[in-house]
């Protein structure tokens, strides 16, 4: 019964809805700010996504943690309002503002109800353009940042990422945690926060998308109100990071029952002609679903872990092929050995025709399913702009996946997958695992 249905479904696969049903408009405000918009009037709210490119990597020398602290302080007082007044106003509007700082972007995610859109926009504007960084609030938020730094120092996963980043990226901003160190955060002043704000929140770093109950004209006016007063220019972007890791194992001893291993080596640029082949290859090797090679070999066949995955890290200032696995201290050596073997196998022989077909049907089928909510679509749109993708990318993306051949995957596997360069940072008390550096 099942098999018949399967065959029937495969037969109609040609009729796949391979195109996501979103219509993107480019909107330029009277004041010259550009945004991508999808109108969706069935629910009376709008999701707005704002990005300031550069994020924590725009840090001034010696001020590690300033941009993070500045981001955490955006809700702590602005214009005439203190933090209590700001929060009460936001609650009363039932507007949702999220400020988040990453290595590549400072992101602002906002949702607001159509009926009270103007008041919501005015409120968000004060946080973005007129924060006051009150001294008393700064001490409280600084204490929260210091608590986070201490807490990360006892979390095996954080320790692993930190050690990997330090080894991989050295003095580049990627080489240290954006929250900063106990010393650097303790030394920050209010002036540093104003300076951090000037460095990041500027028009030359700005990318915007909106999805929801709003027309192009309304969005244009909103953009000028909300963002028109931002300064034109901020700090310049950092250079690409130079990759400082070599193949081997670095062990960071930590008292925990299960080791965490973070691994990786150089990756591939998005504008590389073989990027899509690499993307499909990663899906087969260790991509998110429950049937990748690593998932099958490390978890399903051997029970060595609950989770193992890989991904192409397409960061702005470094391109890596990365992965992570957690395994009991007495099993992690075997897990690493299986991962290395799979790495070598795929480098040497590529993948099978069936694996390639399965990965392509998954990736092309899953793509349109991503576009199923205002917030989700808005995040995709702003991500496309940050990656410098054309506005019609959604229509051509699946064709690029479809075009990948077995030869392409084999070629990119031989070039990309380098078992001898694969670096493991292991945090825990691994048994039978030799550190090599």
């Amino acid at each position, binding site marked *: 019964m099942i098999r018949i249905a399967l065959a029937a479904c495969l037969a109609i696969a040609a009729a796949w809805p391979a195109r996501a049903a979103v219509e993107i408009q480019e909107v330029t405000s009277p004041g010259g700010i550009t945004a991508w918009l999808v109108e969706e009037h069935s629910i009376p709210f709008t999701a707005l996504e704002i990005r300031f490119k550069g994020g924590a990597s725009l840090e001034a020398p010696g001020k590690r943690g300033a941009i993070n602290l500045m981001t955490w302080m955006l809700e702590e007082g602005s214009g005439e309002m203190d933090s209590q007044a700001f929060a009460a106003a936001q609650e*009363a509007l*039932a507007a949702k503002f999220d400020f988040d700082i990453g290595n590549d972007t400072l992101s602002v995610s906002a949702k607001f109800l159509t009926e009270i859109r103007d008041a919501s926009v005015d409120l968000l504007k004060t946080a973005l353009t007129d924060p006051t960084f009150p001294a008393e609030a700064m001490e*409280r938020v600084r204490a929260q940042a210091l608590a986070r730094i201490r*807490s990360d120092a006892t979390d095996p996963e954080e320790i692993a990422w930190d050690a990997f980043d330090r080894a991989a990226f050295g003095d580049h901003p990627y080489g240290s945690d954006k929250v900063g160190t106990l010393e650097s955060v303790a030394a920050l002043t209010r002036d540093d926060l104003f300076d951090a704000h000037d460095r990041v929140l500027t028009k030359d770093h700005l990318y915007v998308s909106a999805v929801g109950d709003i027309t192009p004209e309304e969005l244009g006016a909103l953009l000028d109100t909300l963002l028109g007063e931002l300064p034109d220019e901020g700090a310049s972007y950092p250079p690409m990071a130079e990759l400082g890791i070599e193949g081997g194992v670095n062990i960071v001893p930590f008292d925990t029952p299960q080791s965490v291993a973070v691994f990786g080596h150089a990756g591939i640029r998005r504008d590389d002609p073989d990027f899509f082949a690499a993307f499909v290859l990663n899906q087969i090797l260790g991509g998110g679903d429950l049937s990748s090679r690593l998932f099958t070999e490390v978890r*399903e066949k051997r029970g060595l872990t609950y989770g193992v995955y890989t991904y192409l890290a397409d960061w702005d200032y470094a391109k890596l092929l990365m992965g992570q696995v957690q395994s009991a201290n007495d099993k992690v050596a075997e897990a690493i050995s299986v991962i290395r073997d799979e790495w070598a196998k795929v480098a040497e022989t590529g993948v099978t025709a069936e694996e390639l077909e399965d990965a392509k*049907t998954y990736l*092309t089928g899953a793509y349109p399913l991503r576009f199923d*909510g205002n917030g989700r679509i808005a995040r995709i749109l702003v991500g496309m702009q940050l990656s410098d993708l054309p506005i019609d990318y959604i229509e051509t993306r699946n064709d690029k996946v479809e075009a990948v051949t077995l030869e392409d995957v084999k070629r990119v596997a031989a070039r990309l997958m380098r078992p001898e360069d694969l670096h493991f940072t292991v945090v825990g008390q691994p048994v039978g695992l030799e550190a090599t550096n």
Partner: protein
Amino acid sequence: MRRLFAVLIALAPALPALATEVTTRTLDNGLEVVVLEDHRAPVVVHQVWYKAGAADEPPGKSGIAHYLEHLLFKGTDDLEEGELSATVARHGGSDNAFTHWDYTGYWQRVAADRLELMMEMEADRMRDLQIDDVDIATEREVILEERSQRVDSNPYRLFGEQKMAALYMNHPYGIPVIGWRHEMEALDLDDAMAFYRTYYAPNNAILIVAGDVAPDEVFALAEEHYGPLAPTAGLGPRERPQEPPQLVERRMTFEDPRISEPYVSRDYLAPAREPGAQEEAAALVILSGILGGNDFTSVLPRKLVHEDQTALYAWSYYSATSYDATSFGIGIQPVPGVGLEQAEAALDDALAEFLEEGIDDEQFERVKFQLRAQRIYAEDSTRHLAERYGRGLTSGLTVEDVQAWPDVLQAVTQEDVMAAARAVLTRDRAVTGWGRAPAETEEEAAAMDASAPDAPVEEVTQ
């Protein structure tokens, strides 16, 4: 901001009452089917929820509900090991499952025209699971690794496990969903199949289909694929051991070197939403919003973080949807230099003040307005709407209860909230836990002892 606020209160009632279309039907074999329509994208979420979770496990078999959830991916008479997930992936979908004390759920998210295939496979594994001793041995290693990763590597989760064990003196909510390690290590094929045969049946399940679908078509497909499945005969009422009267506070101090920031966390035994009687739970939802729902304006953060500056963080939480009695929690993470005894005293003072002063009118209206707005934002995610029904229906509520819930919340008065607060916030029915790193020197240990409260710590007293 006062003028803005006045405008908003005037506007607030005008928010449109929109609702996703919900249609329900029960098949002859007892399967309850719920269809939620959302035609914005050609996507469907297909979920089967079993009214069986960790709190329904036999004594000594902790973890079997979750273990079985993993084993459901192993294969049936018609499906090879891993074939279900591979098939979903091949059709561009994603799938997974989840286990809780009150339910176990399985879901796929696919293009809407693939719904029938999902139903076919999910119906197949409702009754025809086929697993062997090899599957079971490997997968037991996986769940033990999962326990290591999620619980043993995380001191806050370990703390929570101990706290729940102390809060529930008799009810199985005191046993972790993933299981105690020593019992997980002994789980076998018979345990899994016994649980499976009893509870995985149409008369113990809820099918939820949400997305770009027509209800009549869903019902016809459900009839075709789930309709022929046999119900479990003689499935009795769902009764777990209940809590005796709780007469005395319990306290614990949990020390782990990985806890860098000490904290105090307290859970009170509290009522959950009951079918046809959700009022007290609704009052507690609003109480939680007023005490800790916002890091700036709520009572505990405002008093402890912003005014007294005793705390880095202060919080409250309440989970209203639960088959049996649930818990209401509060907590404080003090600023460095403030000991846990002082922090706990500050927390108690803030609560006492609140019980005396009552609720600020404006804050009350803001919290309720946010709940109204939440109904609009929630429409953006059909999956979350589907989960709302799944959790409700597996917790003993009806579709009518789930639909009435937003109105029940809006009907809550300040008096209701204060009455619920006085009824629930009593330490005789609570566990107070301190989490911290062990002292590294004798001096530190002496300092910690000096700040210990009168009640004995390091043990669960009752």
